Structures are given as C-alpha cells and as structure tokens.
C-alpha cells in the first residue's frame, strides 16, 4: 500500500470517469502518432522516388511561350545538344487519348508514342518484345493488361485504334506513378506509327535522363540557357524539383494534421484537469484526514499526480498500441509500403505521441494536486 496504490484505487473507483479521460488521451496520442507516421512515410516515399527517378529532367514547351504547345524535331535535337549528348539520353514523346477496341470491347486509352529505339531506354518489359519502327506492333501497360485479362487485351491480341489495327507484341513492367509518363494504364506505340496515324511530326515533351545524377544541375542549366536565350521556349523541370513542390504541400498538410493531434491532446488534458479537480473536490474530507494524521503536502500532491499519471500512462499505452495499428493501415493502404511503419522515425513518432500524452496528463494533474496539497487540514476535515 503506497501513494501509487491509493491513486490507482481512486482511478478505478471512478472507472467510467477515468475511462473517458483515458479515451481523450488515447485519441490525442493516436492523432499525433499517426499524423507523424503519415508525414514521415510521405518523406520516405519522397526519398525513394528521388533515388528512383531523380536522374530525370522533363522538358516541355513553355506555357507562356510563342512556340506553341509542342516541340519540333529541331528543338528536340537542340535540347539534346544543349544537354551534352554524351551526358544524357533524350527521349521525346507524344501522347494522346483515343478510343480503342479489342474485339467487341470498346473503351478509351492513353497512348504514348516515342521512337521505337528509345522505348527500352525508358520502359522495362515484362513479356514479349519491344515494337519496331516498322510494322504495327504496340506494347501495353501492366495495369491495362491486368484489367483487361478477361476481355482479351493481352500479348498477341489485336487493338483497333481509329481505322488501324495494332498487335500487342509486349507487356510492360509496372512502373508506378511517374513525372514523365504514366504507362501502366496506357498503350505504347512507336512514334513512326503515331506520326503517320495522327499526321503529327512534333512532340509533347522530352525526357532527358542524366547518366550521372551529379550532372543534373549542369544539364538543366545548359538546356535553359540554350533554349530560352531570347524568350521562354521551354520549361525545364527536374523530377526532384517537381517532387519537392508536391511534397512541400504534403509537408504543410502534415504540420497541420500534427497540430490537430496536439489540439486534441490539449483537449484531453483539459478533461483530465476536470476529472482531477472533481477528484480533489470529492475528497476534501479525506485529504483533511490524511493531513491530520501526518501526511505532508508533497505527499498529498504526489498522490494526485500519480492519479493523473496513471490516466496518462494507460492512455499512452493504449494509444501507442492503436497508433501502431493505425500506422500500419496508413502505410499499407495510403502509402502502400508497410515497411515505412518500421522506420525508426515512424516508431519515434509513436513514442513521441505517448510521451506527449503522459506529459499532458501530468501537467493537467499539477494544478489539482497543488490545490489538494494547499487545503487547510482543519477546514478540510470539517468539510462534508
């Protein structure tokens, strides 16, 4: 039997009230931890993406430029030269959305076109072969293939686009979201076919892949200086910059969500304060008795702080466990990579949420505990 014991008994004597206070802490801890994990996962995703595609520069026609919304073959060559042909691989491509049909089945699809020889430089294949510039072969994205397994859009199938029929000679590996092209749901055709079919000899964008990531800035600058000497003809974006701008938004959202978590913990703190003040008021007489038989102020204070701490620790432990579950859901479902949960920083966010929960509880218990300790023993004894 100790002060901790007394505190524990009082917490469980009013278990419903205690449970409500604990629930507040649980919510706060989970809010902080999950928001932290989400933010951290987004950051990790960013790093992974940068290391995956950080070597890519995408050159597009400048939006304000006078050169139209496409790039000519000459401009593409200029870009290659400006980048330093030995330092980079340039892949110009065009894209459009068009109707297609496979047998009876009709639908729409994204079509990407690039020089047949460049396709292997940008896209990996899962099955079949890459199409050639001559002939009418095409490739399909992995997701498109998967979605249309039943309808017959697969290796060897015939796809009709407009009045022409293409043969699926290859299936691409899944590539995920990209900042150059998103081939997973698309059909890839050789540029020669595209050019003839759509009567078009210009390109939408140029993907510039730097052989050595260190050259990225030099290459970017080279292209900009050469192409935009007089006016803005092209806009040059490296994927890192694109990723940064996207993730900067994600970052501020994370800060906002963390703020919500913190506010919910503060609300929880207020509810603990309330519970503790009730506990003190109800026990004025008991405090008087404890004081009259020789319990010092600091011991009374300790007893009430223990009470707040019990609520906080229980809330933090439950909250920590739930955060782990919620973190799994976030990383597995939203970010699609549960490994991010086991990243030290993610786990640290759980600990941080728990610590903050305990701290909030202790802080909320401080004033009621002090109040209890300051009670005049005689008046407290007389209290009914």
């Amino acid at each position, binding site marked *: 039997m100790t002060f901790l014991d007394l505190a524990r008994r009082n917490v469980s004597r009013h278990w419903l009230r205690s449970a409500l206070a604990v629930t507040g802490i649980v919510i706060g801890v989970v809010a902080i931890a999950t928001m932290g994990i989400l933010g951290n996962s987004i950051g990790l995703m960013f790093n992974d993406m940068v290391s995956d595609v950080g070597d890519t520069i995408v050159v597009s026609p400048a939006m304000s430029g006078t050169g139209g919304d496409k790039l000519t073959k000459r401009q593409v060559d200029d870009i290659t030269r400006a980048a330093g042909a030995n330092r980079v691989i340039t892949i110009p491509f065009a894209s459009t959305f068009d109707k297609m049909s496979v047998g009876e089945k009709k639908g729409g699809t994204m079509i990407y076109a690039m020089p047949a020889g460049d396709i292997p430089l940008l896209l990996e294949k899962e099955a079949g072969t890459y199409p050639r510039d001559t002939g009418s072969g095409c490739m399909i994205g992995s997701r498109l293939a998967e979605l249309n397994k039943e309808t017959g859009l697969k290796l060897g199938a015939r796809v009709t686009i407009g009045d022409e029929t293409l043969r699926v000679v290859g299936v691409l590996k899944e590539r995920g979201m990209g900042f150059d092209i998103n081939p997973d749901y698309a059909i890839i055709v050789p540029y020669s076919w595209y050019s003839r079919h759509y009567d078009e000899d210009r390109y939408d964008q140029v993907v510039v892949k730097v052989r050595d990531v260190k050259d990225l800035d030099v290459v970017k600058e080279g292209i900009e200086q050469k192409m935009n000497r007089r006016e803005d003809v092209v806009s040059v974006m490296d994927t890192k910059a694109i990723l940064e701008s996207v993730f900067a938004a994600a970052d501020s959202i994370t800060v906002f969500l963390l703020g919500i978590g913190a506010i919910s913990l503060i609300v929880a703190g207020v509810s603990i304060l309330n519970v503790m003040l009730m506990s003190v008021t109800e026990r004025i*007489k*008991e405090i008087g008795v404890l004081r009259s*038989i020789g319990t*010092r102020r600091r011991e009374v204070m300790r007893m009430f702080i223990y009470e707040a701490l019990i609520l906080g620790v229980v809330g933090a432990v439950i909250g920590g466990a739930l955060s782990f579950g919620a973190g799994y859901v976030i990383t597995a479902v939203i970010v699609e990579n549960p490994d991010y949960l086991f990243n030290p920083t993610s786990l640290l966010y759980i600990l941080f949420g728990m610590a903050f929960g305990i701290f909030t509880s202790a802080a909320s218990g401080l004033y009621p505990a002090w109040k209890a300790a300051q009670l005049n*023993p*005689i008046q407290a004894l007389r209290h009914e």
Partner: protein
Amino acid sequence: MPVISFDAVTKVYPLPAGDVVALAGIDLAIEKGEFVLVMGPSGSGKSTLLNIMGSLDVPTSGEVTIAGKRISGMDDDELTLMRRDHIGFIFQQFNLIPLLSVVENVEYPLILKGRRNGSRERAEEVLAAVGITETHLTHKPGELSGGQQQRAAIARALVNDPDFLLCDEPTGNLDTKTGTAIMDLLARMNREEGKTVVMVTHDPRMTEYADRTIRMVDGRLA
C-alpha cells in the same frame, strides 16, 4: 516535564463581522500518563484547544510546547511531522480512509513513517489489542459498525506509538453501550499502556474515567 504545555495561548479568527476569540489566554500543562477530559458548552473553544494541541492549528499568540518542542515558528512540514510522529487523533466521525481496508488504514501511518518492514504484522497486532477480529481486517471501513470503526481509528492513532491521544467527542456518534465500550478501551490504554489521553466530551459519566476535568467557557478555563 509536561507533555503538553500552553502559556497564555490565544486563538483569534478574524472575520469580516469582527474577530472571533476562540481561545482567550489559556495556561495549561498536561503531564505524561494523565487522562484529561475537556468539557464545556458548544463553541467554547474545545476543538480549537485540541487542534492546537495536535499541531493541526497554530495559536495567534502565546507559547505551545508539545513533546518538548515549541511549535511556534514551525513550518507546515514540521507541524505535519509532529502529528505523524507524536500525536494520535481520534475523531467523532472515525475518519477512516474509505479506499483502504481496515488493516491498511492502520498500516498507513507506519508507511508514512517509512516503516514498511513488518508494518502489516504491527497493524494486525494493534487491531487485535483494540478488539478487532481477524475476519474484519480486510473489510472496507464502511462495512464495519460504528463501534468497530472507532476501534480501528483508535488502532490507527496508536500504531505509531504517539506521545498522547487527542479525542474530540469520540463517542458522539455512538450509542451509549458502544460509547462506554470505547471509553473502556481508551481508559485501558491509559491505565495499562500509560498513554496520555486528552478527550473532549459532553457526557458527564466520563468524568469517572479521568484524572481531571478541564472546563471551558468562552475560550477560557473555568
């Protein structure tokens, strides 16, 4: 040397409507082993006197010496430790801690004093001495009769072996028969253990237990 001595002790409660003089100059000495009754009408200052003896309260003026220590100038912690180490309180309303079992209530002052080793045995021993049977040890105070609760409260007051017991109307909440049994118990503690007892009571029959009776009127000794 007296275990309690009062020298010109006053206690004044300043109230907006005017000062209330609860003690108007008390000189008093209580010797070790005495059984002293304090009697007097309601509001005459009996409880105030006992609270100051118990270092629960401090006088407005005058000198109080308890167990050889002057309490003037003591801070709250020192006064609290006086209560813990030298004084046993027994209240009219028993005042056991409802969260603790009977034996834990008695153990509590020992634990406060850091005497954890053997505290349970010591508590059980004192409870047996005041006539609480073993089956009641783990009950909560509310499950006991008034007389049993007051016995437990006496055990709690005795467990730290205080210099004296202060009892403020200890039988006021009990029927006559139970009250008499409690008085017998306190008288036995005084006689057999040599415990000094100061007791406030309204019951004139109690005078037969006491060595002497102090009568109070309007904050003075009559």
